[in-house]
């Protein structure tokens, strides 16, 4: 009998035990807030009470940079002086964040702030009351600098059921995907450019044929399993001109709608005319061995494989490429790393502000102080620059007003790569000089085509169809994942099977809900 104690029971035991502690915590936490400004301590009479020194725990995603502690020592010096608080940073790596992120909310662990984004559980945790609500009053009181500088659209986008739980980045971002390839191998096999899919194909084929110890493109992990599929999908969709599709978030429900369809007729991505073309392309690439036959059990993402020299090509967004490029130039100059546009003419997207942001845990003992700390990280040039670029003179040096040069030590704290994206601020933003040589050219191309998707700020309310969402997500994560990586021997048959499964899972009810909400959305967001 004892043996039948289940894992679940254990987790529940932990959750329960810890929630008891957490409950104790939250009652005591209301105390400092309610004591009306003990008046001493802080100099400003009207400012919030900061007499008690606190340590705030901040969760970031990624691996701890070597010099993280040095940088945060400096940030903490500043914060201690200004708001009598210090930050202790914890990391969860890319390979496990999807699992760990939701669990720290339930674990009852004591922490205060976390990175979040529309692609990183913002809606899911906000609707489960995982985040502390940031009211306009709180913003005025505890984050006056943010209140002043926040883009009004960003504030609007962050609303979930009319309430804001996130400070979105103060930064306008273009997202586009690039290939990163090994120049030495390209020269060896006479490949000129990877700007087209044909070029990329030729390069990967050369690797398959001549480099048996390498996998051309090591995708398949949670991070990058849908990258290649999406790239091809976007090109196909773009080729349809006015009739292009917009995939609705959350993307794991596989729902899309004609971007310019006034009726907002939603459908499953499987039912679109471009699905089969896209699938056949990824299938072709997979059959030719461009990625591992075991890609679906990959735990390492393709940039890590590339960096370790195990693969010859990697796909990532331009911002990841910028910092990886700098690192690789320092570590492996002999690779002659080159970066190519992987968009193939599909428009770059102007990211929503929610693509990066910071939130406060609903059970934080010091939510007000956490808000103050975030205010400084975002709007205080010293804190912002330390967090985003590292220590001036050690990791980087300024070039003019808007540029910077990475110094050799930046391998220990790379530019814009410590999950600092949530505090990015246009006001202090600097771009790397001497980074990717064709960076300018790439940006020009994307700027010309960029558009912000019509349904970019569409938020799906799933409360009425939870069971359908659960059943459909399960299908996405098993069967659809296989298709995205081209794992099928009989595309037509597998797609038909998948459609039957989706029907059984109640996809019709789900699409009805999407349709109603999309129509409402169109009404409130008319085309300009």
């Amino acid at each position, binding site marked *: 009998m004892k043996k039948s104690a289940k894992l679940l029971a254990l987790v529940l035991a932990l959750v329960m035990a810890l929630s008891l502690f957490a409950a104790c915590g939250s009652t005591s936490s209301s105390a400092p807030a309610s004591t009306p400004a003990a008046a001493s301590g802080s100099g400003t009479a009207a400012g919030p009470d900061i007499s008690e020194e606190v340590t705030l725990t901040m969760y970031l995603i990624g691996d701890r940079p070597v010099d993280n502690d040095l940088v945060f020592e400096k940030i903490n010096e500043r914060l201690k002086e200004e708001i009598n608080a210090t930050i202790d940073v914890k990391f969860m790596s890319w390979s496990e964040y999807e699992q760990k992120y939701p669990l720290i909310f339930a674990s009852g662990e004591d922490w205060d702030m976390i990175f979040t984004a529309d692609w990183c*559980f913002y809606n899911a945790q906000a609707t489960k009351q995982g985040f502390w609500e940031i009211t306009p009053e709180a913003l005025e009181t505890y984050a006056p600098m943010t209140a002043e500088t926040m883009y009004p659209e960003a504030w609007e986008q962050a609303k979930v059921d009319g309430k804001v739980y996130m400070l979105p980045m103060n930064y306008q971002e273009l997202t586009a995907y690039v290939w990163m390839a090994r120049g030495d191998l390209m020269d060896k096999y006479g490949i000129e450019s990877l700007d087209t899919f044909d070029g990329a194909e030729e390069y990967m084929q050369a690797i398959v044929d001549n480099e048996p110890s390498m996998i051309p493109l090591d995708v398949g992990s949670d991070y990058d399993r849908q990258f290649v599929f999406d790239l091809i999908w976007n090109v196909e969709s773009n080729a349809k001109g006015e009739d292009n599709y917009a995939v609705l978030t959350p993307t794991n429900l596989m729902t899309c709608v004609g971007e310019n369809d006034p009726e907002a007729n939603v459908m499953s991505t499987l039912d679109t005319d471009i699905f089969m073309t896209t699938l056949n392309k990824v299938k072709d690439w997979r059959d030719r061995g461009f990625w591992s036959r*075991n890609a679906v059990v990959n735990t390492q993402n393709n940039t890590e494989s590339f960096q370790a020299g195990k693969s010859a090509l990697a796909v990532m967004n331009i911002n990841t490429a910028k910092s990886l490029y700098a690192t690789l130039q320092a570590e492996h100059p002999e690779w002659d790393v080159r970066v190519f546009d992987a968009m193939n003419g599909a428009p770059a997207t102007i990211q929503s502000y929610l693509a990066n942001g910071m939130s406060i845990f609903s059970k934080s003992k010091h939510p007000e102080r956490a808000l103050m700390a975030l205010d400084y990280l975002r709007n205080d040039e010293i804190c912002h620059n330390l967090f985003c670029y590292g220590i001036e003179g050690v990791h980087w040096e300024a070039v003019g007003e808007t540029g910077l040069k990475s110094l050799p030590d930046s391998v220990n704290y790379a530019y814009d790569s410590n999950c600092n994206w949530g505090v990015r601020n246009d006001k202090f933003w600097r771009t790397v000089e001497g980074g990717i040589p064709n960076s300018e050219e790439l940006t020009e191309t994307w700027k010309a085509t960029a558009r912000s998707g019509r349904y970019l700020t569409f938020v799906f309310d799933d409360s009425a169809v939870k069971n359908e969402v659960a*059943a459909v997500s399960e299908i996405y994560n098993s069967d659809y994942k296989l298709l995205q990586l081209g794992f099928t021997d009989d595309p037509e048959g597998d797609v038909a099977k998948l459609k039957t499964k989706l029907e059984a899972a109640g996809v019709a009810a789900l699409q009805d809900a999407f349709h109603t909400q999309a129509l409402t959305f169109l009404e409130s967001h008319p085309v300009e």
Partner: protein
Amino acid sequence: MKRKKSAFLRDLKKNRVKWLMLLPAAIVVILMCYIPMGGIVLAFKEYNYHDGIFGSPWVGFKNFEYFFQSGKAWSVTRNTILYNVAFLCVNTFLQITCAILLSELAGKWFKRITQSVMFFPYFISWVVVGAFIYNMFNFEFGAVNTFLRSLGMDPVDIYSNKAVWPFILIGVSAFKNVGYGTVMYLASIMNIDGQLYEAADLDGANMWQKIRHITLPGIRPTVVILFLLAIGTIMKGDFQMFWQVTGNNPMVLDVTDVIDTYVTRSLLQLQEFGMTSAAGLYQSTFSFLLVLLANKLVKKVEPDYALF
């Protein structure tokens, strides 16, 4: 009532050392098994972090719908039961065979070393076993395929071949558990009265006859008890094993997904604590019924061996 109570107290006093010995185990069971049972309420609630387990709103049986709607309930239940039955049969058979072989072997040192070597895998973590499997079977650089290629044969793609996974899983389960069970059966063989064997020798029984008529009947109580314990866990997949060894591979999920992995996967992906608790409760209820049933059966056939 009063008399009963004093009887209990008297017993407590009389056997205080035994009660004391029971205490640590009892505490662990209460802490780890009984107290968390309160969490069952989650299955009937729409959980949110703020209100916690007990404060979240009730939703009745709504959480159970998803388990059946996803079309997975039947396939994961079937997998769980079939795998456990297979493990139970294969492992028990191998364990008894090994135990008898070892007991018949002369050579103390050889016996000791064999026993330790067999026991050793029990201590290897499933994560490590999962890594073994991956390094043996991965398509591009795995040991098996490297070997096949060196012989000029075609490589095999294990990770997308559904048919082989049940065998791999049964194999690794045996690899890890046979040694452990062997030691238990060996101990029970050692407990058999040596005089019985001497008497058999005098009667001119050969080795087979001794095994059939003395050893096997001698270890029957152990077999029954271990079998009963195993029945209780027949609805429970060895989570670590299924998760780590298959790498949560969607290609073969149809044949490797058990209730435990399904629950964990949906919890991680959906973060719907209520729904996954519902699936967990379904599993526990069935386990409980099975234990009752098995015990009843044993009671009918062999009243002395029933657990309660």
